[in-house]
């Protein structure tokens, strides 16, 4: 009996290794029949966890509320300043004859399932909807989420920026600091290759840089968390708090043209 099972398992491995088409079809079929159940389970899990979260967080809510109110006031004043700058920018662009940057072409997709251990999610758009490998995936606030990995007929797997295989150029626009964002797995992100003489601090915002060409310029990656500085290392590192929360992620946009 054991031998038979091992032989079957071995055959399956050989089968799937040699026939990626078969593997895609099989996975696509299971995603198709499972997605309605997964959606229902997803919503149920969301409700249950929200309920327990509220009970657990009731003490912190007041303090957090006050902090958010303060931050909100700060942001409102920043928006006012930026609106002023935007107007000035438009006037100058008009004067110089430069057009505004064109917006991206987006495709909306719903998240079907998530795999935290592999730092990937499954979405309900595939090759039938014009999705290709390596297309950037963003959230509703134009925050970077990842890029398309495997593409099936009606589904695609998104490799999150926190995946171990993910690495791209980024910058801190306020300070003109560039570095490389590297995924470390388990939803962890690090900013690396920042020269020691540059000063980065907690709360600095990181956006994508145009170098490398995988992602469009100016997408929000996250904000700096703990800075790891060592005198013996030529570069400093910093932990990044990603701009997306995988638990809240329900819909994403795929940039098909940029």
């Amino acid at each position, binding site marked *: 009996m054991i031998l038979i099972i091992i032989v079957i398992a071995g055959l399956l491995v050989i089968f799937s290794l040699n026939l990626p088409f078969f593997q895609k079809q099989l996975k696509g079929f299971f995603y198709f029949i499972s997605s309605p159940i997964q959606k229902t389970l997803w919503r149920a899990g969301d409700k249950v966890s929200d309920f327990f979260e509220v009970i657990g967080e009731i003490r912190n809510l007041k303090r957090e509320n006050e902090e958010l109110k303060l931050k909100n006031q700060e942001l409102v004043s920043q928006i006012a300043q930026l609106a002023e700058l935007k107007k000035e920018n438009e006037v100058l662009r008009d004067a110089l004859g430069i057009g505004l940057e064109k917006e991206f072409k987006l495709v909306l997709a719903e998240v079907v399932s*998530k795999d935290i*251990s592999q730092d990937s999610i499954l979405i309900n758009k595939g090759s039938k909807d014009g999705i290709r490998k390596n297309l950037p995936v963003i959230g509703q606030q134009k925050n970077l989420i990842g890029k398309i990995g495997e593409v099936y007929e009606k589904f695609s797997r998104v490799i999150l920026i926190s995946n171990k295989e993910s690495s791209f150029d980024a910058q801190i626009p306020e300070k003109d600091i560039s570095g490389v964002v590297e995924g470390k797995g388990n939803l962890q992100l690090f900013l690396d290759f920042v020269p020691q003489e540059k000063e980065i601090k907690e709360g600095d915002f990181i956006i994508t840089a145009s170098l490398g060409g995988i992602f469009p310029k100016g997408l929000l990656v996250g904000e700096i968390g703990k800075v790891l500085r060592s005198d013996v290392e030529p570069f400093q590192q910093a932990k990044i708090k990603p701009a997306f929360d995988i638990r809240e992620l329900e819909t994403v946009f795929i940039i098909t043209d940029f």
Partner: protein
Amino acid sequence: MRKSLILIIFFYILALLQTSFLIHFSFSKIVPNLLLITVLILNILEEPRENNGIFGAVASGFFWDIFSDKFIGFHILILAGIAVLIKLILRNYLQPLIRRRF
């Protein structure tokens, strides 16, 4: 046959729970892996001569592969290997030890 079918359905439901419901209940960004835990418990608690645990491991590995970005067979081999190892330890070392004592 009936037992095998029940095991397949059971592990399919577990895989669905793992990739949707359980994501909301991570402890410091770690989600407990129901499939692995169930395979371990099933193989440890089952009568060492029975083979349902190994079959369960293959079914569990298959569904784990389906919902992950690894090729089909990756988790099947890992889980089946773990199950066979548990069975071998139970059959060859623990069972004779228990028989000798009682």
